[in-house]
């Protein structure tokens, strides 16, 4: 994605990931398959304490730990492609969070905290599917305020909890006393917030890819009234509507990734826009794919059932659909999202945000640069 989306500096627009990143994603997909594919999540659910031991060597083998998504360029794109491949297999591991771990290795990874203030009680406690994959986690709010939190022990088994653990923020010293995060967000913090929102959406995209792929195969194979389900227009139309949602997420995911990569001043807003669309898409895609699978879709022998259950953590944490929309609406204020028709109000809004410490402002006529 070297040529920028909507930018005014290049002569064309390449909406694809780089060949290297795409190839890395395919390699990861094959490696996960060779290591068990759909069996991985089932094995992790049977023996939750072994999940890190099951997945980490595999990630080591494909060089996942050498990726630095903050380095941008191919590494960020490769991280996105890797997350998408992990989503395809519902890889039972907090890959996106772990890929965003701090360079000094002081914590296991990075989790977005839903609250915006520095103190306790400004939002729900952070939570993510990190149980058993590390004790201490870095946190960052949408405003870029950093903190550290400790994962609580699992309240319930993964069959229904899908490895989600709540995190207890650790107190840190601030100028006004002892709080649970740094007082002011930084540009780096906001860039991290955008990254922590975008990468899990790539995992969710991989899950949508898989759910639709499974359903396509199912409706082609399953016969009713003497013909495949795929022949019924009622089935076809549901599937196309779900596919429109999936491909829309794919485009927004690439845009949001570019926004992070370019250090765009609106990267957090772009990431929230992606998350909003991805959560809406997930709602429709899983409703349709379950419906078209019929009762088979609930059964453990059906892969859709596993993908569907393990899509829950990323769809609820760190922000639900309503919370995502709420944050997006408040953050864009009157300015809206960047784009060719953002106009003076949009440009002014982005500039105001940039003035508050963002890494970059908006380009000409509100277009990302």
């Amino acid at each position: 994605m070297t040529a920028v989306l909507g930018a005014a500096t290049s002569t064309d627009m390449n909406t694809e990931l780089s060949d290297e990143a795409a190839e890395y994603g395919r390699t990861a997909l094959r490696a996960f398959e060779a290591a068990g594919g759909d069996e991985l999540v089932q094995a992790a659910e049977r023996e939750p304490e072994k999940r890190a031991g099951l997945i980490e060597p595999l990630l080591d083998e494909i060089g996942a730990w050498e990726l630095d998504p903050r380095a941008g360029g191919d590494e960020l794109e490769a991280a996105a492609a890797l997350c998408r491949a992990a989503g395809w297999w519902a890889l039972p591991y907090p890959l996106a969070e772990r890929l965003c771990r701090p360079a000094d290795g002081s914590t296991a990874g990075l989790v977005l905290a839903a609250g915006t203030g520095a103190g306790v009680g400004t939002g729900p406690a952070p939570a993510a599917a990190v149980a058993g994959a590390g004790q201490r986690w870095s946190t960052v709010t949408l405003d870029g305020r950093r903190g550290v939190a400790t994962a609580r022990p699992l309240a319930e088994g993964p069959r229904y909890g899908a490895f989600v653990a709540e995190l207890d923020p650790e107190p840190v010293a601030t100028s006004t006393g002892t709080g649970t995060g740094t007082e002011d967000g930084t540009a780096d913090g906001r860039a991290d917030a955008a990254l922590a929102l975008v990468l899990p959406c790539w995992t969710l995209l991989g899950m949508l890819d898989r759910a639709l792929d499974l359903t396509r195969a199912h409706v082609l194979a399953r016969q009713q009234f003497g013909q495949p389900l795929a022949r019924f227009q009622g089935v076809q139309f549901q599937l196309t509507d779900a596919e429109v949602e999936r491909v829309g997420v794919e485009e927004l995911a690439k845009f949001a990734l570019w926004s992070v990569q370019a250090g765009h001043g609106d990267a957090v807003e772009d990431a929230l826009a992606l998350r909003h669309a991805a959560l809406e898409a997930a709602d429709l895609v899983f409703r349709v794919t379950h419906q078209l699978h019929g009762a088979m879709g609930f059964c453990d022998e059906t892969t859709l059932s596993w993908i569907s259950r393990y899509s829950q953590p990323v769809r609820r944490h760190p922000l639900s659909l309503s919370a995502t929309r709420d944050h997006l609406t408040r953050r864009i204020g009157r300015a809206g999202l960047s784009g060719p028709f953002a106009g003076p109000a949009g440009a002014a809004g982005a500039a105001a945000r940039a003035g508050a410490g963002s890494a970059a402002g908006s380009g000409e006529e509100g277009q990302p640069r």
Partner: protein
Amino acid sequence: MGEGVATLRRELRQLVREHVPPDFLGAFTADPADLEVAQAFCRTLAERGLLCMAWPREFGGRESSPWEQMAVREEMWALHEPRGAQYMGVNWVGPTIMRHGTAEQQARHLPPISRGEVIWCQGFSEPEAGSDLASLRTTARRDGGGWRVTGQKVWTSYATMAQWCFLLARTSKGARRQQGLTVFLVPMSDPAIEVRPIASMIGPHHLNEVFFDELRVTEADVLGTVDEGWSLVQEVLAFERVGIARYARVERLLHEAPTALGDQWEKLPEELRGRWARMLVHARRARLLAYRVVALQASGRIRPDDSAAYRIAVTRLDQESAEVLMDIVAEASLPDEAGRRFRRAVADHRRYSVSATVASGSVEMQRILMARALLAAS
């Protein structure tokens, strides 16, 4: 998207500011002055080489890039299409004549199109042939060296103001319904053609019935080959893969809303501002899906179903955004001229959006096209 595109956008916006009144809501209103604004604007674009940018140089174009063409589509639609009906001649009638027309047809039709002087209408749909175009009944019966055309077209946009019609009629009965169809280029001034406007909520000039009563046509009026018009029509539709950049007007109106409402914006129900934000996300999504189609087109990898996802998303956006925008203006008083102008633009958008999922190929046809590709093994 290059600096050239940004410059082009600036140039187009400047031209619209200079030549189009701020309360312009399109060429197709009850006020004939609006049509004249559009016609004059087309001449202005033509003088600057901006009307037929995509055309090959040998026909007076600039061979502009797909991204420049996209920027033109976006800018024009965002600003209520000040080219009026010209996009039809420029975007597909002209290019089709370039490919299939005789030297005489090219000499006769291309210069007036490139100067923005002529309006075309499209004689495709009929009372019994909507989405199922191949079932059309308008017939061209052999009569000496030519044909006599009899039949009826319907939903024909701009027929009251068009000088020419791109007419599809049946010339013979083939083994398949798609066979035996022929395209004729016919002058609307012929007394054997009668146009009856259809009053509708989307405004005047958009919908008409056109009756052909023994219209005399000759070999010279045939575009391409007799009986092989179907493949030509498929090509025509391919020119319009991306179609109207509906998201551009939606994005512009959504972005204008807070300015138009002024202080009242913050007093809107929070939930309504949330719906506004959601529409901005959906508008961006539609725009990126359009860019995906353009990228595929530019790389020569496009298939007919590739634009279907975009078309489904953008037509839904058109209608959903209209509902949100109507609710926004209903919650505000908007007493000044700019406010009234915004309210009128939103109401116009709402009326026109009703046709979005029907016009230029219904959304169901797009779903069928997409399903066919998705389920190719079936």
